[in-house]
């Protein structure tokens, strides 16, 4: 049972080691001559003009809430997809009801313009 997860564990270890190397090695072997410009946070070439910790607009929240709702919808579909061969038409119908209600919700949210930023 647990042995099934061994590849996963190996993957995690490799990823962690790789990340550690990527962080540690440059500080060990890279040249260091800092100046004021280099110390500033990277903003894709822009000069930072405020603190990064600003209040986010409420639209982010809207996006996050809708994401969670549809995320949960997809989670419900995961075991259903695994079992569809066994559930046959019955499975299609019950998921049809479930999706119908959420589809109407989706249409509503869309027409309401909640997916648009403003």
């Amino acid at each position, binding site marked *: 049972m647990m042995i099934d997860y061994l590849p996963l564990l190996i993957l995690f270890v490799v990823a962690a080691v790789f990340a550690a190397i990527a962080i540690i090695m440059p500080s060990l072997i890279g040249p260091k001559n800092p100046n004021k410009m280099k110390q500033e946070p990277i903003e894709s070439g822009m000069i930072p003009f405020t603190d990064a910790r600003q209040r986010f607009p409420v639209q*982010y929240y809207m996006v*996050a809430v809708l994401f969670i709702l549809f995320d949960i*919808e997809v*989670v419900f579909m995961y075991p259903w997809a695994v*079992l569809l061969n066994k559930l046959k038409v019955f499975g299609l119908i019950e998921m049809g009801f479930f999706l119908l209600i959420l589809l109407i919700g989706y249409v*509503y949210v869309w027409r*309401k313009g909640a997916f648009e930023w*403003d």
Partner: protein
Amino acid sequence: MTLILFAFLALIALAGGLGVVLSRNPVHSALSLLLNFASIAVIYFLLHAQFLGVVQVIVYAGAIVVLFLFVVMLIGGNIGPYRHGSRTVTSVIAVGLAAAFLALVVWSVVQVLPMSATPVGAPDAGSVQAVGMALYTDYLVPFELASLLLLVGMLGGVVLARRYQPFAEDETQ
């Protein structure tokens, strides 16, 4: 082997939980919560509850923590620690309540200890197939009701988070 893994994960989960409570920066609290969720997910795998573990990662670690971070940033990440009223009094009360709750949990675990020697259900009761089979046949009703709950959530999100539109009085005339 399982016991060592469990102890290790439980320690990480505990550290994450303490981080949530003790951290003075709400962003750090949310990130500690992520650590906690992730280690709990692995504990679910240890218990052969694969589906629960997957859901824990997708929904909790993936979506809920992001929502928490958004809400923290919505309120303002810079508000600093909460300093209202006496911190010592509230912490004493909180610790007292937590201790009482811990006692309750330990007590109930002790009560059922003889029972827990036998595993509940089949060995693969937590697999995606088994959970799905239960969900889509025996627990069909709550599954369908869940879609209504999600619908209410959508409506509620739109109502409460849509940009505030001041109401023009003359429109009612």
